[in-house]
Every structure is written in C-alpha cells, then in structure tokens.
C-alpha cells in the first residue's frame, strides 16, 4: 500500500479514536448523573430535607448537613471575599514593580497546588487548637477560606487585567488619585469577572470534604447548628457517612443527598457562567 494511503488510514483511525475519547468523556458524565438520579430521586421529599440523621435509613434526613453547608458557605464567603479581592487588587494594581509582590505571586501559585487535606491539617492545629476554635463552623470556614483564597485572588487579577488602560488614563487625567481611580472605575468595571470567580470558588468550597473532616467536622450530627462556634457537618460529609454504610437503603439516601448537592453546585456554576457571559458581552470597549 502506498505511503500516502497508509497515512490516510492512520489519520482516519485517529480521528475516530478522538471522537471515541470525547464521547467517552461526555458519556461517562451522563451515565454518572443518570445512575445517581435513578437511584436517588425517589427518596427526595420534604421529610428528607427536614429530618435529622438517624440509624434508620427511611427516617434519616439531611437537615443538619444542609444547614451546616449553608453556614459554611456564608462564613467562608464572608472571610475569603474581602481578603481575596483586596489581595488581587494589590497584586495587580500596586505590586507591579516590587519584589514583595513577586514573592507573593510565587507563594500564591504554590498554595493553589497544595492538596486540600493539608489545609485541613493547618486548620486543625492553628484554628482548632491554637486559636481554640475547636471543631467549629468558624474553624471550618477559616480553613476553607484559606483554601479558596488563591482562586479568588487569581480571578480578581484576571478581571482587573481586562479593564482597558485608557479608562485609568481618563480618570487620572481628570485629577483622580490612584485609590479613587480604583474604587470608582477599575473595580466597578471588573466586578462581573470578580463575582464570577467568587461564585466558582465558593461552589468548590461547598464540595470539600476531607479538610473539614480533619478540622473536626462530625460525621454524625443529630442537631442543627445555631452559631459559628457550634460543631457541624456538611452535605458532602453526610454523603460520605451514608456511602460508607453497608445497608442498601443508606446508599439510596446518599444518592438523594448527592442530587441535592449537585443541584446546588450546578446552579452556582450556572449562575457564574451566565454572569461571565453577560459581563463579557457588556465590555465592547
């Protein structure tokens, strides 16, 4: 067979292999989601959402886990957003020339790659023991806030970078100071991108399991937490608990809880993507 034909066959085969791999990736996702829905959707009802966990699978519910997740979501956001956005603004607008900023950049890049469970160890010792927060919601939120900080910082920087320089020039030209230019022009103009990044970061935080277990989140919580110093559990940990049980009914519970967790995750990601699209369209500089 001629060389040319042989090359064509190789090319053709690879193309089909490529299609196959792509289809594989996507269909695993679909099979994945379908199997979970099939297993769990019947279990979801108002009782499921409002009940406490129990030894009896039919009676067990996700209320403490859901409330715990909400608490964690709010506190983690409250801690990481101001610090992350401020850091991003500093690095992008003030830190261009100095070595301190370069050092911080490398530091943040490294932190982004540290496994989440190590943050758990950090939280356990520093927040849990040294700062005496114990295995509380506050300790968990502080830990997760540090974990997602690099993500918030990077997306803040990207959003600020996208603001065209001519806007800053116009502002300076009218006699505005650096902070006035930042607070009145640059940050508002990059708000869309910043918010998108924050939502994605938070949505990652609520899916985290290992660092919270290490910090001291409980696996079995028969009460609803009422304050930041309370002990707690979150949806992913509740799921982990149920999956680890041999009884089949708990597996169904796990699937149901997963559907709720995925709903929250996908809704948040969806909102973030929608915002990103709208924001990108608005900017027809």
């Amino acid at each position, binding site marked *: 067979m001629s060389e040319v034909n042989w090359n064509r066959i190789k090319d053709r085969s690879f193309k089909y292999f490529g299609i196959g791999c792509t289809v594989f990736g996507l269909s695993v996702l679909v099979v994945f989601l379908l199997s979970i829905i099939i297993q769990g959707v019947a279990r979801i009802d108002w009782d499921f959402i409002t009940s406490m966990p129990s030894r009896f699978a039919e009676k067990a519910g996700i209320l403490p886990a859901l409330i715990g997740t909400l608490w964690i979501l709010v506190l983690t956001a409250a801690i990481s957003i101001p610090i992350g956005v401020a850091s991003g603004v500093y690095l992008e607008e003030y830190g261009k020339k100095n070595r301190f900023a370069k050092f911080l950049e490398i530091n943040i890049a490294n932190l982004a790659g540290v496994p989440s469970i190590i943050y758990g160890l950090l939280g356990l010792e520093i927040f849990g023991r040294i700062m005496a927060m114990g295995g509380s919601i506050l300790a968990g939120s502080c830990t997760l806030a540090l974990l997602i900080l690099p993500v918030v910082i990077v997306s803040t920087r990207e959003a600020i970078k996208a603001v065209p320089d001519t806007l800053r*020039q116009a502002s300076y030209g*009218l006699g505005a100071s650096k902070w006035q230019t930042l607070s009145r022009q640059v940050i508002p103009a990059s708000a869309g991108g910043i918010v998108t990044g924050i939502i994605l970061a938070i949505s990652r935080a609520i899916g985290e399991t290992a660092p919270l277990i290490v910090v001291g989140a409980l696996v079995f919580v028969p009460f609803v937490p009422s304050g930041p110093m309370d002990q707690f559990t979150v949806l992913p940990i509740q799921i982990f608990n149920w999956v680890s049980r041999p009884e089949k009914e708990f597996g169904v519970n796990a699937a149901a809880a997963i559907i709720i967790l995925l709903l929250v995750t996908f809704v948040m990601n969806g909102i973030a993507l929608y915002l990103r699209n709208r924001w990108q369209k608005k900017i027809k500089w």
Partner: protein
Amino acid sequence: MSYKLEAENINVHYGSNHVIKNVSMKLQPNTVTAFIGPSGCGKSTFLRCLNRMNDYIDLFHLDGKIKVDGKNIYDKKVRVEELRKQIGMVFQKPNPFPKSIYENVVYGLRIQGINKKSILDETVERSLQQAALWEEVKDDLKKSALQLSGGQQQRLCIARTLATNPTVLLMDEPASALDPISTSKVEELIHDLKKDLTIIIVTHNMQQAARVSDTTAFFYLGDLVEMDATKVMFTNPRETQTQNYITGRFG
C-alpha cells in the same frame, strides 16, 4: 506680557532613550498651538509632560522646567491631582466611563468631594453647552455614555474635562478617530473654547493644524525643529526640514 505656559530646556529620557531633546517654548494665553510631526517624533510625549501623565511610565525621566502661570509643575511640592484639574486632557480614542452621561461629566467634581446636586446639575449643563453637546443629550442624561456615537462620546470627554474649569486644555489627536462631520464639530469647538482656555493640540492632519491653530510647533525625532505663527509655518517656514514635511516630502 506673561506667558501661560513656559517650557525651559526640556530633556526626556525613557531609560537610556533620549526622546525629547532640549525643547523650549513659550505659549500665550488664549491661543491654540498645534504640535505636528511624523509618528514617533515626540509630540505626544511632550504633550503628556505638560500634565505629568508620563509619571506613570517606568524609566521616565525629565530634566528642565515646565512652568504654568509662572510655577514649575515638576516641583516636588506640586500635587499632581490639583494640577490636572487645571490642565485637562482629551485623548485620541474617546474613553468615556461606562456610566451615564451625567456621571461622566461630574466625575471630576465628585472626586474632589463635591456632591451637592445643585452644583453638579449646573456644571453638567454648563460643560455640555461648552462642548456643544447639550442640545443632543439634555433629555436623557441618565443614558449610558457608551450608547453615544463616536463623535458625541468625544464631545462628552471634552465636556467632562471642562467640568473642572481648567485653564489649559491638552488634546492628543482628538479627532483622528472621528468621521469628518464630527471632526469639524470638534474643530468649531476648539475655536469657541479659545476664549477661555489655552489649547494645545497634537495632530497628524496638517490641514487641521492650519485650520485650527494660531501657532504651530514642528517636532522631528525629539527635536523642536521650528515653532512660529501658523500662517508663517505653512507659507514660509525657515527650516528646510519643516518645508519638506509640510509639502509631504516625508512623514
């Protein structure tokens, strides 16, 4: 007679690049001066020295004195934010803020802490009138500035600059991104504004320079080759180089 603006032996370096070579000039108040010259000759750079916009560039270094109303603007005690309220700048590509027309115009006042509605309203009307934009936008000042046409946006930028009551106006190729009709509107504007302001305009368009300015300065490779009354520059320049540029032999 006193000069509005005086530049004495200005030398500018970007790192080791000598980009402005020993330029001196004196400008009368209430005149329009045009800076002309081929691309990269330093006219925009020199313009930006006049309101210290080059301060933001690393490696920028200026020697010499630039005096406005007799005071050196590069003196250490000078507050740059104050300076820029006196010396306004209009850029080549219109750059309105992504806010309403009203908020664009009052920005220069808000950053000074002036937030009283009556003052702002009055300023908006005055500035937009001065920029010959009032009639076109007065019915909807809340409209986003980005929805205006290119020519309108540039006049808005001029209004925005006029809102702080400057005495000098620097214009960096203000009409080069505009269509001919908008361009002539801007040129009319310059003629009217001359009554109250001293204007310096950088332009690539020599016909525009001839139409609009009283004095013209020809820059070439960082040197101020020649500066004289516009009529003289365009009919009987002293330097051969000037003659060659104006007649289109190069540039």
